[in-house]
């Protein structure tokens, strides 16, 4: 059976080799001052077009809920999808090798650079920019909720509760995922069932 998604991925931009995957991830990682999260959506969705916003949200949900660095998890998943285990390892290596060499070189040459007032100031400035970039990724992805089976109203309510729980009440992530995540998944499960019933009813 050929699924719609297979046809869609066949004609879409994709990494054309292991080395393309490795260097793309390296380039992505090296743009990530103050964390790679701020640039990952821009590069993978808007520049490379390997994923749509909807697919990015879905993959990000998996990368986020599993333990480990989120961007590393995402790179691994994408690599695996195109080239199997070798792709996963190439993407992982791309994400880590050159950034590791750079951070060690910085540590070896300027062990005290992070304590200089100028460096501290620059770090603070980049931190504020990074915070804005990450929040902007969230805002851009809100559009992906339009097609969600839970309907926009329920999505907005869940998003608002999650934001308050994490940002204002500072409840640990694990609890938020457990309580709000299970509730959301149960509701989505129910809605998917309702949709399937309607589709069955329509064909009879």
């Amino acid at each position, binding site marked *: 059976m050929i699924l719609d998604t297979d046809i869609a991925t066949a004609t879409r931009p994709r990494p054309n080799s292991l080395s393309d995957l490795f260097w793309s991830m390296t380039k992505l990682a090296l743009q990530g001052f103050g964390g790679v999260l701020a640039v990952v959506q821009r590069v993978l969705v808007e520049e490379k077009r390997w994923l749509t916003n909807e697919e990015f949200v879905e993959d990000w949900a998996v990368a986020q*809920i599993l333990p480990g660095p989120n961007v590393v998890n995402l790179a691994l998943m994408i690599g695996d999808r195109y080239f199997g285990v070798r792709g996963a390892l190439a993407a992982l290596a791309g994400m880590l090798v050159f950034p590791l060499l*750079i951070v060690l070189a910085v540590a070896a040459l300027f062990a005290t650079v992070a304590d200089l007032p100028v460096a501290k100031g620059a770090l603070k400035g980049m931190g504020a920019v990074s915070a804005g970039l990450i929040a902007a990724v969230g805002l851009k992805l809100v559009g992906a909720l339009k097609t969600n089976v839970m309907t926009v109203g329920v999505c907005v309510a869940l998003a608002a509760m999650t934001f308050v729980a994490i940002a204002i009440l500072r409840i640990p992530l694990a609890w938020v995922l457990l309580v709000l995540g299970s509730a959301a998944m149960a509701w989505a499960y129910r809605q998917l069932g309702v949709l399937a019933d309607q589709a069955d009813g329509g064909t009879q």
Partner: protein
Amino acid sequence: MILNLSAADWFGFFTQFAMLSLLSVGGAITTAPDMHRYLVTEQHWLTESQFTSCISLAQAAPGPNVLFVALMGWNVGLNAGGGLHAGWTGLAMALFGVLVPMLGIMIPSTTLTFVAARWGHQNRELRIVRAFKQGMAPIVIALLIATGWLLISANNNATKDWPLWLLGLVCMLLVWKTKIHLLWLLGVGALLGALGLV
């Protein structure tokens, strides 16, 4: 600081980080308090200032934030091998120190992600898998916005920190609504910060 670490110590270092790997939902940084307890308070392998500079250096450098773990290993290796002025043995010890906690923090979580994500992708038409992805979508989107909020609200002195908030807000709007290259924004942020303007 000169340490004398046995093979058992290194193995303990590895297993400690391998255990934290499986607990690191939301990124390795969420387990930093426990790493601090282990490395600084209990084992005395790192000084307080070495520990904090690992985190700030990894943030200043490009790349995933998990590399702060590599720097912790690097510093433990330096402390154990006599430092870089001890020559090749000092460097070799530092590089060995990088490998031990990095393999520990990476192997369990990446293996789990690989297996779970592959299963999820192969079964992406299952109702339960679709429910997971559809249900989690609004939550992970809110988590991104909340992460931005938490990062900036570490600066909570309204009279002194308002330029930082303004900078973050302007960047958010620019990235949301335009295609401006992100490195320009990071460069401007670094410059404003270095000049002491934010």
